[in-house]
């Protein structure tokens, strides 16, 4: 019995509805999503929430404790920390998102190739991905920073180069099993090009785990950016990022006497990453229940 297209559609849309319902019922995931959206909204529309900007120096209010004027206090140049967190969030989140997406893209392409063609190219790619994976990530990133140099663009390149392995593995494994499926054989028999079979026919079926992995990577890269900026090899300090705001906390003086300089940005990063992780876990429950 053939299912009509309409039936198929309604089946998939009811599945979608069911998934959405399932997601809405997941309290942690919803909390994560809400926090994520709130922070994202505040960062994107920062001027709505603060009259300060991230750069204005005010020597009359250096390192002022949180007050009504500066709700999160000011930093060493009298810049409003609340404003810096909002504007810095733009860059940090962008780094995380772009890094994770381009990493996933690389992972998908390589994974498709390895999984579809198999054989030597597969073995080689798997070997490379293993190498990348076992290398302590911080060391790997540091080496790449040494090779490519510092800077926002380079950081994005580095993140994509170090963040493709999870996706690669997933896509490859899925491809290995999916390429034996009848519909792929049929496509091959029809003489469809390999490219369109790989990316047009098989790839859409493995998107769910990829989306989940990408979400989790976004959180990971936001943390990495913060760590790198903390080490002083991340984004140039004149661009406010969450990591750069925290970088100031390196000295004992600041840790001891000016808690708002590091505690608040630290908490913001934690909350945002936590929210993304909750969201990602919720997505996983819905999209990819096999994975734990």
């Amino acid at each position: 019995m053939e299912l009509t297209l309409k039936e198929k559609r309604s089946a998939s849309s009811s599945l979608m509805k069911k998934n959405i319902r399932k997601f809405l019922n997941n309290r942690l995931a919803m909390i994560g999503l809400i926090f994520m959206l709130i922070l994202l909204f505040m960062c994107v529309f920062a001027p709505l929430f603060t009259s300060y900007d991230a750069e204005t120096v005010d020597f009359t209010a250096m390192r002022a404790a949180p007050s009504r004027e500066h709700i999160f206090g000011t930093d060493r140049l009298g810049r409003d920390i609340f404003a810096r967190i909002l504007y810095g969030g733009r860059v940090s989140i962008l780094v995380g998102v772009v890094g994770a997406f381009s990493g996933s893209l690389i992972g998908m392409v390589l994974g498709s190739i390895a999984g579809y063609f198999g054989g030597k190219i597969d073995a080689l790619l798997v070997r490379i991905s293993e190498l990348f994976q076992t290398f302590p990530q911080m060391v790997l990133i540091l080496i790449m920073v040494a090779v490519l140099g510092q800077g926002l663009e380079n950081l994005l390149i580095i993140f994509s180069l170090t963040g493709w392995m999870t996706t690669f593995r997933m896509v490859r494994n899925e491809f290995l099993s999916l390429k034996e499926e009848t519909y792929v054989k049929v496509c091959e028999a029809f003489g469809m090009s390999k490219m369109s079979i790989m990316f047009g026919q098989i790839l859409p079926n493995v998107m769910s785990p990829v989306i989940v992995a990408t979400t989790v990577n976004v959180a990971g890269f936001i943390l990495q950016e913060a760590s790198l900026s903390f080490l002083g090899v991340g984004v140039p300090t004149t661009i406010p990022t969450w990591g750069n705001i925290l970088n100031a906390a390196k000295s004992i003086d600041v840790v001891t006497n000016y808690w708002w300089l590091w505690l608040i940005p630290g908490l913001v990063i934690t909350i945002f990453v936590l929210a993304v992780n909750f969201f990602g876990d919720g997505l996983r429950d819905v999209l990819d229940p096999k994975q734990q």
Partner: protein
Amino acid sequence: MRKRSRFIALVLSLALAVGMLAGCSGGGETAAPEGTSAQTEAAGAGETVGGSESTDEVPTLRLASLAGSTSDKIDTSWKNHTLQTTLLFRTLFLADSDLQTVQPDLAESYELSDDGLVYTIKMKDGLKWSDGEDLTAEDVAFSIKANLKAAVTNGIYTTAFMYIEGAQEWKDGADDLSGLTVDGNTITITLTTPYATFIPVLAQFDILPEHVLGDVDPLELHNNAYWTQPVCSGMYMVEEHNAGNYYVMVPNPYYEGEAPKIQRIVNYWVTDMVTTAQAGNLDYYTTNNPEEINQFNAMASMEKIPIDILFYRYFICNMSGVDGNENSVMQDVRVREAILHAIDREALATSLFPDLATVVNSGVLNSDPEYNGVTYEYDPELARQLLEEANFDFSQPLRILYYYSDQVSIDFMDAVAYYLNQIGVQTEITQTSTGTVDMFQTRDYDIAYKGLSAFAVNEWYGEYQSTNNNFMNIFGGDTAFDELINQLNESSDPAVRSETLSALQEMEQEMLYKLPLYTIGHVLYINTDHVQIPDGVEFANPWYRSDIDFENWEIVG
């Protein structure tokens, strides 16, 4: 049977793995026991020196160095001095705190010919190195000659020694340095042109032992293992060096001067000065870092002694190289002036470097009699106007380069970016880890933030000299300043000197190749609970050697 073979295999592979790790880690295994044995050695050493059971009971002065990438050797003393190197190595003369007037040290006396070209220096008799070998005029000759060929050295030596007759030939491979002759314990140095600060420079120049270093290629001198346990000429010598951990200095038995009262000095390699001091392990420290100053001020036992030194912070403008490569952005002097007016230097100085920084408007300090009163007021309107007059392209970011990595410098650059932004100038700020190459070779910037710890004001102006190896790449070998600079270097007559300085100041303000910002003072901290310094000691720039009456420092409490 199978079980046993599996077990053997497991043991084998584990052993192999451990072996690999150990092999790759470059003797990491042995390093730990080394540490412990060194400790017992240290305890033993304590016994011989102090005659007591434990090292704690020998009154010890505690110093510390940052264990950066170097923590296995004492930094070559031809770079900047530290208290440690001034105690280990001596120079021909000992400078007073003004760094200009000198008293005899290794040398007994010197004479200068009337034309100001020939120095005749007489060495003291019976000088000895810490290994008992004689310290002679030959060592002095060796040191000067080696310095001319060394790769790592403070520029003040190179600049001065290049005035010696035949210096270039010697560098180019001549058999000898013709302007330098040794006769017994007399050294004769002939200059091509007079050089006023030659003796003060000699008062900073450490003499190194020819009998140890004679065969070493001067290019690699700074890497030599000598620096882990150097043969010394100073009042102390290195007794023991536990690389990465600490080294111990004890009085040099061959030192002919007054024996110091402090019997033992330990220098720890540490990762952070503040915590070291907080833990009570630091007796002497100098800094110009406002953050550290904050922390040290909070320590009750630390006495604060401000030191006035000549340490400039300024921007250099990337004009054009000798290769003809010209940076069009900075060519108009109004652009350069606008930058000075755009930045509130006074506010920056007082906020970022409270009590430390003083704004300058040229190489001449505002407090000097030669100061001509020119100021660059904070005036964004004027700055903007100047830029517009100069047809400045506001769509292009101004590229700024800096090499300091401390937090205050980062803050400073952020503030500069903000100020320039206020007048509509976009900025692109790069922190480089390779100041030299990026500043003088790559030159991919418009202005660069730089520091200069000057021995004298001459050094500031020396940067304008057309023959300056580094700056000719930036100022295009402009010869405009040369005559005045030579005059300043050569003349020791105060009136001429003052006149020359005024003229240089004018010229500098007209050219504005360098945008002066401020000078930064230094602060010295001494743990007065533990150390007592004699009355009347005057401290000079801690990067130079001067008389601080160290013989009479004492450990108390």
